[in-house]
């Protein structure tokens, strides 16, 4: 049994993820150290290495338990994620104007990152419960209750405030409902309605000074800066301008690791976290960008083939959620650094510095591999 499971591990997916992680480590080095000699002087490189190893361990651990068994703990996991998110608001550590960190002994973690993995499991459970009790089709009410299921934790994340991560929950909702068989036209309609609401709010804020509930002023500024980056060269638009300059200056082969003014002269903000793609573009050029995007394509295609071969609907929906989470964040983050998406403060999966996100993403990959190992059909 174990041997068969082992044989069915999707090694290509694992290798692609590892390539992206190694690229990430290089870029963290490129933005926080100034030469090969001083790489290990950078605490970010040392810590990210440790997080990566811990994350791979967690990924393997996640693969060991059958995902159908994990599913049975859905209520508990949902309660745990809400508990964490409430706890961080009450006893969390404030940093940079937001309360995102929950201390546990000498360490601390971001509950929002953990919650998005847990909600992945619990929402899939709810979505599939509807589909399996009879062969009935999904209704608007199912969409409503699913939206409530992710809306509660997402709301708790918005008030931290962390708009970007809250939007990730919406992506999970769309992705899982789509894979479960919900009408794509209805999903599209719902998504458009949500987006339209945001645009109307923004416009009424800019034109008529209407207050936007929940959103902090800096978030609104970032959204406006997306529309006109040169409006305020030292404020939110400044980040975008610097990022575009850095990426552009990389040209085909890049300026070389540790070279380039953006990262090394600290023009780039948050260069080892949210804007790490800019450092990649600046230091490794088109070559680096292509390797990264191709690796992500491999990751997504492997995950999609696991969805197709999944033993049950629950497995497929679970993986669908992971694809949605990763895809949404890749597009928003990479798009943001090149000025085609608003600045939302979402890190790039497997690449940006940050232990909670890296470990959460590796656990998600573990879930995907878990579903893939326990498939019925032989793929391709």
């Amino acid at each position, binding site marked *: 049994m174990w041997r068969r499971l082992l044989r069915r591990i999707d090694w290509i997916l694992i290798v692609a993820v590892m390539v992206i992680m190694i690229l990430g480590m290089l870029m963290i080095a490129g933005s926080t150290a100034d030469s090969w000699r001083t790489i290990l002087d950078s*605490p970010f490189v040392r810590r990210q290495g440790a997080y990566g190893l811990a994350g791979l361990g967690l990924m393997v651990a996640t693969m060991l338990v059958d995902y159908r068994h994990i599913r049975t703990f859905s209520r508990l996991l949902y309660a745990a994620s809400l508990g964490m998110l409430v706890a961080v608001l009450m006893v969390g550590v404030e940093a940079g104007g937001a309360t995102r960190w929950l201390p546990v002994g000498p360490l601390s973690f971001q509950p929002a990152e953990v919650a998005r993995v847990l909600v992945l499991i619990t929402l899939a459970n709810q979505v599939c419960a509807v589909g399996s009790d009879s062969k009935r089709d999904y209704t608007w009410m199912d969409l409503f209750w699913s939206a409530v299921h992710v809306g509660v934790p997402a709301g708790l994340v918005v008030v931290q405030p962390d708009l970007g991560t809250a939007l990730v929950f919406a992506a999970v909702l769309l992705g899982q409902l789509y894979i479960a068989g919900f009408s794509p036209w209805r999903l599209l309609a719902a998504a458009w309605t949500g987006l339209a609401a945001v645009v109307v709010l923004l416009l009424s804020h800019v034109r008529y000074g209407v207050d936007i509930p929940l959103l902090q002023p800096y978030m609104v500024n970032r959204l406006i800066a997306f529309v006109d980056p040169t409006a305020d060269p030292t404020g939110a638009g400044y980040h975008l301008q610097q990022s575009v300059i850095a990426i552009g*200056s990389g*040209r085909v082969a890049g300026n070389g690791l540790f070279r380039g003014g953006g990262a*090394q002269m600290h023009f780039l903000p948050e260069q080892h976290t949210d804007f790490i793609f800019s450092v990649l573009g600046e230091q490794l050029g088109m070559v680096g960008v292509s390797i990264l995007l191709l690796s992500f394509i491999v990751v997504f295609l492997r995950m999609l083939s696991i*969805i197709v071969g999944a033993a049950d609907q629950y497995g497929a929906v679970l993986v669908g959620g992971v694809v949605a989470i990763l895809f949404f964040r890749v597009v928003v983050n990479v798009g943001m650094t090149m000025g085609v998406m608003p600045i939302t403060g979402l890190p790039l999966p497997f690449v940006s510095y940050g232990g909670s996100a890296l470990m959460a993403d590796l656990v998600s990959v573990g879930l995907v591999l878990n579903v893939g190992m326990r498939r019925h059909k032989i793929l391709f």
Partner: protein
Amino acid sequence: MRGRVRLLGILILLVLALLWVRAAQLQLVEGEAFLAASEQQRLRVLGVPAPRGRIYSGDGETLATNRPAFVAQYLPSSEPLSDEQLQLLSELIETPAQTILEAIEKQAADRPYAPVDLKIDLTAEEYTRLMENLYQLPGVRVEAQPVRHYPEGSLAAHVLGYVLQIDERELDTFGDMSDRVYENRDVVGKAGIERTKEFNLQGWDGEVRAEVDAHMRLIDSVTGREPKPGDNVQLTIDSGLQRVAEDALQTVTDRLQEGHNPLPYDPETGRYVGLWDEGSFYPADSSDPSRRYEEATAGAAVALDVQSGAVLAMASYPDYDPNDFAVAPLHLSGTEGAREWEKAWSMLTDPAAGQPLLNRCVAQISPPGSTFKMVTAMAVLEYGGLSPTESKRCAGALEAFGQEYRCWTTHGSVELHRAIAESCNVYFYRAALSVGIDNLSNMAREFGFGQPSGIEGLPAGTESGGVRPDSTWKRETLGEMWYPGETLMAGIGQGYHAYTPLQMALYTSTLASGGERVKPFLVQRVVNTEGDVVWEMEPEVTHILSASDENIRYVQEGMEGAMEPRGTGYTRFIDYPQISPRTGDEVSVAGKTGTAEVGGIGERRDNHGWFVAYAPADDPEIAVASIIYHGGGGSMAAAPVVRAIMDSYFEIGAAPLPSTDDDITAGE
């Protein structure tokens, strides 16, 4: 299902392809333009270092502050220097052209964007010359960097400590120990107060997003965060008393080495008088004014406030000037400047150079000699049931265990008072024998011997607890049994005993206060830039001597006797008691000399001279301990230092030391 997944796959491929196209547009189509934009950046984020908090003495004198050091820098991104420009620059900053070129080339490989330091800490002259000619030198600029400055030079250097660039280990631990983020090139306290109060003194760096010209000169700062200076620290050290103590240590050691020995002066007769203490026991008579004490290169003195434990002076000699390496952190590792600095540093830490960095007051332990006799006295009064009036015979030596234990003179019949005042060895041999080593050790523990005092203000681990021997200690440490003969030596502060000058001062203070052992402290309070007190020392009694007031009083009287005619400290304080102009009261001193034999068998080295004292004898305020290592007898070598401190504390006009041989011969 397959259809849906295929649709999703196409969507994913399409979106990622669009992102790739956008990247290609930025990097391939507009790449050159963005490269140019990147190189012509005018906006940049500059860190603004926060000034380190200042350190003040108890009387408000500034002991540590900050000054700007001007650094000539070259920006590698600018036009290369022409030969004429290089020549001009070389003359202006008095640095060979070759050195300048090497510095630029070397750094271009390692850190292509960072400015190259050409010369660190320009003199005022170099600075003016360079600024006048800067317009001819594109790419060269002058930066002001904050550097730690100690306006009083070496004053209280061992208390203040020094600052250097943060090291690997500190980088790992400091962040967790405080609420600050430490970075690679931060300057941090390494010793003394600079280290203990690092997390107060270190400020919060600011930031400006600045517009600069092609020479990286600031045109306009756009937005920013103000740097927040570190908290200021006020010490208990009295700058006047500290200066007197340091000067006295230097003068006395110089004179001992030269053979211009500091003999006491009697203002009534106008003569320098001979000395009469344990020092004169040894073949080289310490009353010989031209005897050279060549090893007398080091000394230490500690003055404590008897009531609170505040350290009023803490002097260790030889000392160092912390300004000498204040600019060291500005040198990048691997540069010529850094190598020169490392060489200078290794000299400072070389034992052969006299270890000027060592704070002997807390880190060097030495046998206390006769200054320890008050412990033996307390032990025999408390545990031996000896009456203070009971007398013992001193025939100049005591025969015991087949050996002869000598006294420095023949005292005849002595009781406790005379035994202390005239420092009779035989009396204390007998006393020690009667109570035994373990009782003796127990009484020593009461005074804080054998454990660090826990002084507030010095980094953990810098203070030694000394060696307080007893039978258990010897069995555990040396694996041998205790011999009765060793008890005799322990009774006069010889043998294994070894303590720090701070412990000796604390012991003297405990006797002076009638048995209250306090916690010594160097830091009075920490005040932030808003003027709020963020930390204040609360004096603490750490132990109350379990001994009767009566017995303590007997011992105090013995110490007073040492300052009266025939007492071993008399000649040094011959003109006391005196009226203190400051308090208006009569000040008499109580004290004790010590002359500690050092070196092993067959090794003849000069003795350590000790002196401990407190004053006023009837209502003690200050307790002082001083040692001159290898300086001979205590009343000759160490007592002048204590005398200088007492004179200064009570503002009593000091008796001058003879300055030449002529003075001395005229006095004899």
